């Protein structure tokens, strides 16, 4: 106990230590507040689109009941908002959310050309990226750990205290381990403080997810402490320690993620998914020049639920044919869409597997998953939008195909999009990964200690 007290007093007297912890806390709080503001903005944007949606529907409702021809017109103009509703954690862990549009609108036309809309936003900012709490945790915290503990031994040696201390205790390695554990414990407390602040300042709740993220964060922190410990155990100069640490950090945080990306892109053909929109458009417009009745007959064969409709198309124009062809234009590019999905998932999986080599990547993948801000979430959103459009089709087609007027009551039954996050499931793997990396470096430390003695 006295040892801990003494060490704490020593740390407290260390100005650099105080400043670093203060800067870390300040940056973290700032990131939490900014993140939460960003999240609230997303909710505001959604409120705007919802208000507009309701106003537009109310406008049509005034003329209700609408004859099928008019409600057909309505479906041509009426966009339905879809939103990849952010989790509370996305305020702290932005992940890949800025890479695709998470809030957009779809109508009853060919889906793929509507989904390829990119997000608005400042393009110039994209290569730099934004600062969120996950960046501070994953990329900057290791540097803080290095600053706190890397030169414990070297400094003690330089101050001449080490020889005194080492002569008094039997096992100097143990002493050093204790010193590091104290630093690690302090940082852990600071991190828990940040996590609790997040509960207070954001919509994050102290639930199972919180504990998972806290566990990952603490394991990650320990992992870097062990790495630092290994470097110290080499018993080289402070300079060497710093350079080795920074090199390792660069390899884990820059080189390996970069190479993983390079490999992922090498596996792909550039621009191969353009056909999703290209072929869709060709099909859609060719249909105007083909025998409309023949196309419509085929559609009715393929979709028996609409077979009881009047099979002869109205001249010169029939909404049933129009929406059937819009739907078919999605059907004929289904293979391309599946390929697009496969390439995304495959690329994501590869990155995740590659992450076994780098704790930095592993924790990033893991946190993005837990916050539902990764590519799996984005792909699930796209799939859910496709399902939603199917619901819309099923709903509106009843009116067009069975010649039903669209009444005021029918407006309230229009399906509503509600994003359901997929269940996170990789916290355990992440912990195992971090333990393996930790054990690897502990092994190196033990080997080194034996060598040092010998």
């Amino acid at each position, binding site marked *: 106990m006295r040892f801990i007290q003494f060490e704490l007093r020593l740390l407290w007297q260390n100005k650099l230590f105080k400043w670093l912890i203060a800067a870390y806390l300040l*940056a973290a709080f700032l990131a939490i507040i*900014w993140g939460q503001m*960003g999240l609230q903005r997303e909710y505001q944007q959604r409120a*705007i*689109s919802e208000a*507009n949606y309701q106003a537009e529907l109310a406008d049509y409702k005034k003329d209700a009941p609408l004859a099928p021809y008019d409600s057909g017109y309505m479906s041509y103009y009426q966009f339905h908002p879809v939103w990849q509703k952010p989790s509370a954690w996305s305020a702290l862990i*932005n992940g*890949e959310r800025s*890479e695709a*549009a998470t*809030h*957009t*609108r779809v109508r009853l036309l060919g889906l793929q050309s509507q989904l*390829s*809309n*990119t*997000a*608005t*936003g*400042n*393009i*110039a*900012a*994209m*290569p730099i*990226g934004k*600062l969120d709490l996950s960046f501070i945790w994953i990329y*900057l915290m290791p540097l803080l750990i290095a600053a706190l503990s890397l*030169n414990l031994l070297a400094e003690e040696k330089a101050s001449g205290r080490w020889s005194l201390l080492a002569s008094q205790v039997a096992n100097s390695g143990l002493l050093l381990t204790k010193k590091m554990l104290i630093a690690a414990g302090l940082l852990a407390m600071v991190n828990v403080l940040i996590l609790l602040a997040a509960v207070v300042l954001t919509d994050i709740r102290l639930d199972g997810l919180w504990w998972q993220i806290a566990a990952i964060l603490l394991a990650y922190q320990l992992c870097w402490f062990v790495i630092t410990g290994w470097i110290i155990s080499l018993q080289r100069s*402070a*300079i060497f320690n*710093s*350079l080795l640490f*920074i090199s390792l950090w*660069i390899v884990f*945080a*820059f*080189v390996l*993620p*970069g*190479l*993983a*990306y*390079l490999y*992922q*892109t*090498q596996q792909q*053909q*550039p*621009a191969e*998914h*353009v056909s999703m*929109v*290209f072929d869709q*458009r060709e099909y859609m417009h060719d249909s*105007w020049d083909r025998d409309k009745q023949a196309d419509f007959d085929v559609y009715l064969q393929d979709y028996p639920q609409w077979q009881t409709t009047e099979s002869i198309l109205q001249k010169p124009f029939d909404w049933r044919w129009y929406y059937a062809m819009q739907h078919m234009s999605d059907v004929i590019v289904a293979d391309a869409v599946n390929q697009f999905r496969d390439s995304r998932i495959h*690329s*994501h999986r590869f990155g995740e597997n590659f992450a076994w080599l780098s704790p*930095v990547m592993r924790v990033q993948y893991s946190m993005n998953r837990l916050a539902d801000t*990764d590519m799996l979430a984005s792909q699930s959103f796209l799939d859910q939008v496709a399902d939603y459009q199917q619901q819309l089709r099923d709903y509106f087609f009843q009116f067009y195909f069975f010649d039903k007027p669209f009444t005021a009551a029918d407006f309230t039954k229009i399906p509503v999009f509600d994003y359901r996050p997929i269940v996170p499931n990789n916290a355990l793997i992440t912990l195992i990964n971090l333990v393996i990396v930790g054990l690897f470096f502990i092994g190196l430390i033990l080997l080194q200690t034996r060598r040092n003695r010998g």
Partner: protein
Amino acid sequence: MMQTIIEIARHELITQWRSQTLKILLPLLLVLTSLIAFSHWQQQQDFIEAQTLWQQQNDANWDAQPDRHPHRAAHYGTMVFRIISPLSFIDSGVNPFVGNALFLEAHRQNSSSFKQYVSSTAYMGLGYLSGATVILVIWPLVLIALAFNSVSGERVQGTLRQLVSQGISVKQLLFGKTLAFSLISLVFLLVIFVIATGFMLQTPVHGGDVLRMGAMFVLYLFYCLLWTFTVVLFSNWCRTNQQSLSALLLFWLLTVIVMPKMAYSLADMQYPMPDRAVFDIQTAQEIAKVGNSHDPDDPYYNEFREQVLAEYGVSRVEDLPVNWRGVLMQEGERITSEVFGKQYEKLMQLAEQQNQLVSQVAWFSPYLLANKLSSIFAATNADSFLHYENAAEQFRFNFIKQLNQMHAEQIDHAHDREQKVSNEHLANLQQFDYQSPTLQAELNLIYPPLLILLGWLIIGVLLLSRSRNEV
């Protein structure tokens, strides 16, 4: 004076040549950079080829389309495929983040879609892995590792005292060291650019690209020089080697990693932009404010009809020598396009305000300045992308306008929908021929960051030459 500096530089180079650090780091970085550059070059060529093929197929389909009603053809529209700059393989700029295919149709302004690759860039938190990133982000770290103790080490070992007693001033020493590390940077850059030139020569090269590449080389050299000044000065200011190393690493972390990210986050908070859905809604609302061309009682379009009727001196749209629907369509297109243009400009103004705020921060981050210049020189900056999108929108408007004109002139008002124009007329329409801006046209973008960077260089020289003999 000069001779002493050269002698000191020579001495430093010999020391470095014998040191482990240089022997490990320089070849490692050269191999890494060349590998990245090679792979990016290959991907760039593949991409350019793929885009060209898509464009050819699109154009061929357009020409081969059956006789169509002009408005049908306007909905069919056309697609344009962006060809990335041939210097993307050195600095990819915004390329990995933006869409490259744009569908141009009547009534609607679509956004560019389809990124070059589907993989996420989010896991490269320290920066996209490209040649430029290695030079701008990683090479400064190497310089720090090589030179942090260049002066402080001499001081700690007491050799500084010896040198001064031999009549060498600290100023000469600092310039000598700077010269040595600049030469190392020069070698690094030369090797990379020789390799890059080798790649460039595989394809026909335009004079403009040679100029751009030269500008990039000079920029990187200046940037390395600035970092050399920084490292040597820090090394001179700090008492111990460890202090010098820690201070430099912190400086690097702040100016290269933390400040740029903070600046963009702050800018985003300060000038929030509407998201895709809200932007589309706002645009639609503004268009609806002008009028609805489908509403027979719409005041704006009624007035427009009266104007057109008066212009031709007739009283009914059926008596017009042109097809009223085509005229109406063009007026609608004009309004949509104009309103969209205004809305889009508002959006871009927000982005511009964000970037202005970042430029303020960039005064203190040579990395941000150099990064911006580098992407301008490589023609992979955000502005060059927006220039393309604007040109495409211009083209779209004119394209649809010509089709509306066909509608007005070649389609009779009666039985409008059942008529078609010959495919030859459609095939005669010009396809998109994009001209990217020259470097000269972008001078207004280049000057501000360049002048600040030069300002820092001058300050560096001043600080070096005013260093006193403190031993």
